[in-house]
């Protein structure tokens, strides 16, 4: 189906649904007709959504293994400014993500990192601070640029001790708040060469927020609000998952809305038929790499 047909179809059904709802509220006498219209246009919208979903999923390469491009190689066609989003979760996930990032690579000129952190997760914030400081000193020693970064705080889906009845509301709020994190360009990058300024890649390794972010990206692409070529969702299953996928991993695996899907252990990779990328967390620099060991 051609792109314009799909858009027209989606728009028409949305308009029909809107006007039917308007009619039903203004003149209750037309109840039956309005209800029919609402029914019909809801079905039409549903058809639009599923067509678009299938189209998006099939547009992705069926191969969810990563394409390995050497970041130091000029072959990589990097946008004038590259901007990546990192979804951080509770302490363990954050620690793993930062260890995967901290592999000694430090040529980040024109590169921006945005961290998505849940409110009240001061542990993740501290870890990010430590990582960025250590990266800055590494880059200084090498004479390269560490690039820029910012933190974007979203409401936590459920605080500890929060009454159960209010959980759906805060969960919804946290999902709604993901959209600005994806759409608002980082301060320093406004008006620069990159236009429109969306993250090129979105990294996640297992926290529940990771699935909601992937879902938000998918919805934005379904509605033609962001191009398919950006916000590529790169999912790396947590190192802690040896034989089974985490809930987030399962959701992303079965919905097919991640662009890259890898695990860090062979056992779980074999079970789901995905690629094992090896224990990426161990790419991390260790203390002895950072400060020469005083003992010797």
């Amino acid at each position, binding site marked *: 189906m051609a792109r314009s047909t799909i858009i027209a179809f989606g728009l028409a059904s949305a308009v029909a649904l809107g006007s039917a709802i308007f009619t039903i509220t203004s003149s209750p006498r037309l109840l039956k007709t309005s209800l029919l219209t609402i029914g019909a246009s809801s079905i039409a919208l549903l058809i639009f959504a599923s067509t678009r979903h299938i189209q998006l999923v099939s547009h992705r390469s069926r191969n969810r293994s990563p394409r*390995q491009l050497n970041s130091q190689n000029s072959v990589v066609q990097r946008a004038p400014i590259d901007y990546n989003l990192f979804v951080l979760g509770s302490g363990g996930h954050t620690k793993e993500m930062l260890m995967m990032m901290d592999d*000694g690579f430090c040529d980040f000129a024109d590169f921006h990192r945005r961290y998505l952190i849940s409110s009240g997760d001061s542990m993740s914030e501290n870890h990010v601070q430590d990582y960025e400081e250590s990266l800055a000193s590494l880059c200084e020693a090498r004479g390269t640029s560490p690039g820029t970064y910012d933190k974007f705080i979203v409401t936590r889906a459920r605080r500890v001790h929060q009454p159960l009845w209010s959980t759906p509301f805060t969960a919804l709020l946290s999902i709604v708040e993901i959209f600005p994190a994806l759409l608002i360009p980082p301060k320093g990058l406004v008006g620069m060469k990159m236009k429109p300024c969306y993250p090129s890649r979105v990294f996640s390794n297992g926290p529940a927020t990771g699935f909601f972010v992937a879902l938000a990206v998918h919805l934005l692409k379904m509605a033609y609000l962001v191009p398919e070529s950006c916000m590529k969702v790169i999912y790396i299953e947590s190192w802690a998952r040896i034989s089974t996928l985490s809930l987030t991993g399962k959701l992303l695996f079965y919905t097919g809305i991640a662009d890259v899907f890898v695990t860090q252990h062979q056992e779980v990779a074999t079970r789901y038929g995905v690629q094992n990328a*090896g224990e990426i967390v161990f*790419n991390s620099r260790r203390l002895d790499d950072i400060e020469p060991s005083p*003992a010797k």
Partner: protein
Amino acid sequence: MAALQRNCLVTVGATVGFKQLTEQVLQPAFWQFLSSEGFTSLRIQCGPDVSWASAQLTSLQDEIPQGLTVDVFESTKNLMKDEMLLCKASSGSRQTGLVISHAGTGTILDAWKVGLPVIVVPNEGLLDNHQAEMAKHLAKEGYAITSTPSYTDLQGAIHKVNLLWEENKSRWPPHEVKSQKNPSALRLWDMHPQEVEKEEDAQMTND
């Protein structure tokens, strides 16, 4: 004998606690063993069991061997910075210590990062068997020695971990930017989605 410090850290995780392990490392016989192995300090992070542990420690105060200090505490903000660094060798003052840990991934990754020998004691009491699975994986790959929460097993594990430690020195040498220890591991920065085949893509827009 040179008065080099040697610290042993026991950690059970912040939330649930692991009383069996805490009990065993509070046995005077275990202290005697540690002392004979040259340890000068034993610090036990025991989470919710801290009041029980400190009462126990007070009652056994007289049995602490000469030259060893034993402390218990609930938890700390940053276990790696606050405690693990005390187990790291420092020329002239400290030799490499030891971490005895529950099979929590956070602690294990931290200990790996600091570069410390680790003994992993899975908490079998927890409902999921993730801890046992992780411990098995770590032992299989030679990242750590596993033990049960019994001080006699722990003593055997301490002998073994010293050997493993020597072996692992060559396994993870300090690395510069590009040299990867594990050639099969991809780098996060290098991961990009597969490109959709050009023809496939063109066909999509035309049909």
